[in-house]
């Protein structure tokens, strides 16, 4: 049995010459290499079609590259089985999406509790953790509300609480402020930065340079390649 876990290092996410080709000869990524250190906060910026979303899904182990190396939280994401990758996602990675992806029939509390559904933690413990997580994102008074009864900013906070409930080492956010007005967007960004300051690695993709401004490291992409990697 080959090991898919690499020795612990300071690198949380690593892409090594990653190529992603979709059916029909479309290249979403053309040889991308980056290292993102533990606790780093990185914004990936680029126009639509630049491959930034594909990069995020590969970093999030939701997709495998056509070629290249991927290491996520110490796991070789290319060699790992689907089941192992699911384990990595269940325990290590928290996702935040532009469209929130909340379940309408559930209360905010239950939505957040699903963030730990596949970790094997009991329902009771998950609800306790969900309460804490909601309090942490400032929604302690909205536990029993359903998504339909919440504002856009509040919904994204619920989604963030769902991502952070399991205390992931990596948070990946895909245009988390894309559907929000600037004030709610700023609040959500502040929240994400705050989480990362507690030690999580944060990767966020956006097409909005203003959002990227708040990040200490900014990677710029175009046509499936990294064209700039700036650090402040």
């Amino acid at each position, binding site marked *: 049995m080959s090991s898919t876990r690499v020795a612990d290092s300071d690198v949380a996410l690593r892409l090594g010459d990653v190529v992603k080709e979709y059916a029909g000869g479309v290249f979403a990524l053309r040889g991308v290499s980056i290292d993102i250190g533990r606790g780093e906060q990185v914004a990936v910026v680029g126009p639509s079609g630049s491959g930034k979303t594909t990069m995020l899904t590969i970093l999030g182990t939701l997709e495998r590259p056509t070629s290249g190396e991927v290491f996520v939280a110490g796991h070789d994401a290319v060699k790992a089985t*689907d089941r192992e990758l*699911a384990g990595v996602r269940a325990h290590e990675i928290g996702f935040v999406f532009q469209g929130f*992806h909340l379940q309408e*029939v559930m209360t905010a509390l239950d939505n957040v509790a699903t963030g730990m*559904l*596949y970790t094997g933690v009991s329902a009771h413990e998950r609800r306790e953790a969900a309460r804490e997580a909601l309090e942490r994102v400032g929604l302690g008074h909205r536990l029993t509300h359903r998504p339909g009864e919440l504002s856009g900013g509040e919904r994204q906070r619920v989604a963030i609480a769902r991502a952070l409930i399991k205390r992931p080492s990596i948070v990946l956010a895909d245009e988390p402020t894309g559907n929000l007005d600037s004030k709610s967007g700023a609040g959500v960004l502040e929240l994400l930065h705050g989480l990362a300051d507690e030690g999580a690695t944060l990767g966020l993709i956006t097409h909005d340079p203003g959002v990227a401004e708040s990040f200490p490291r900014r990677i710029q992409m175009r046509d499936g390649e990294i064209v700039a990697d700036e650090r402040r």
Partner: protein
Amino acid sequence: MSVALPRPASAPEEPRDRDVARISLRELLAVAALGLRSRRLRASLSALGIAIGIGAMVAVVGISASSQADLLATIDRLGTNLLTVAPGQSFLGQSETLPSTAVPMIKHMGAVQKASAVYTVSGATVRRTAYVPAEQTGGIGVDAADTNLPTSLGGDMASGHFLSAATEDYPTVVLGAGAAQTLQIPAATGHIQVFLGGTWFTVVGILNPLILAPDLDHTAFIGLPVAERLFNTQNSPSTIFVRANVDQVQNVSSLLAPTADPQTPDGVQVSRPSDSLEARAAAKTQFTTLLLALGAVALLVGGIGIANIMVISVLERRGEIGLRRALGATRRHIRSQFLIESALLATLGGLAGLLFGVIATFIYSVAQNQPMVVPLYALIAAPAAGLAIGAVAGLYPAAKAARLSPTEALRAA
């Protein structure tokens, strides 16, 4: 499997399952139940298909079991120890006759409890009045009967009383249930007379239907002495009804022919009326099989309906599936979720069907005034059938859901 690289011996071993995506069966059930709860109308409609199929089958099984129980109770009440003896046809096709000694001979047999005979009265018809044309007999035959006929047959009176030693010499008549209905005589009041073979006979009794000898229902019974006197009836039984000891029915049956007619035993037909009732019960079972097959077709259609709904559900819920995969669900977790959802849906349908079927059986039994019987196996088979159908119907949709690429699923929503 993910295996940690060797660590320094001093470091405590991290629990292996820290890295594994897991969910308990109970939680999966809760997730599946939530999936159904959030689409109540659709879930109930698709479960209805299964409910109707299973309901129909339970009702068929229940109703047939109830009527069978009723029939068997009737057979039990009337006894299976009744035998009939009748003249058969000779080798040349002529009707044989039984000798007049047949009844006393049979009565002498050890295992015979009772025996009574009827004698065909030829040339006589029963009419309400003399003005009714003689051809309009209404299909009512006239028989002379021994006075103990009802006790042998297990028959009882709807009104009045049967012929007795006191009345059999006189023009009195007892009508079978069907004959009384045809003649429109509701009750034997003692004042009603019918015109029987040219003589007015007083109706002294009306019988209830004779379940073991239904052909006697359309018969008017008069006493043998009066029949001999007025119509020249021969003392040669057309049918003899024999009650034997219950444990010796077979023996008696085989000895009846030679006893009744020692000269030509081959010309005697012996039969057991309860056999035909039992045959009727068996025939009902065959009919039941046909109806069950129809129920199975309904069930198949219901199963396809569930598969259809689940496929649509998977397409609609791509976003949810993508999210679950992002949260750490394995393909197997997704597959189990949809499989359980489908099985749960059909099991609920099966339980609803069981309820429908029991209610239908209950209503039928009350209406027919018969005992209600739902076979015990139906109580287990109904939900089990639902479970099995749901599991099969969910196979394809669940596999489809598991195969979805999580990124495509997330993008679609």
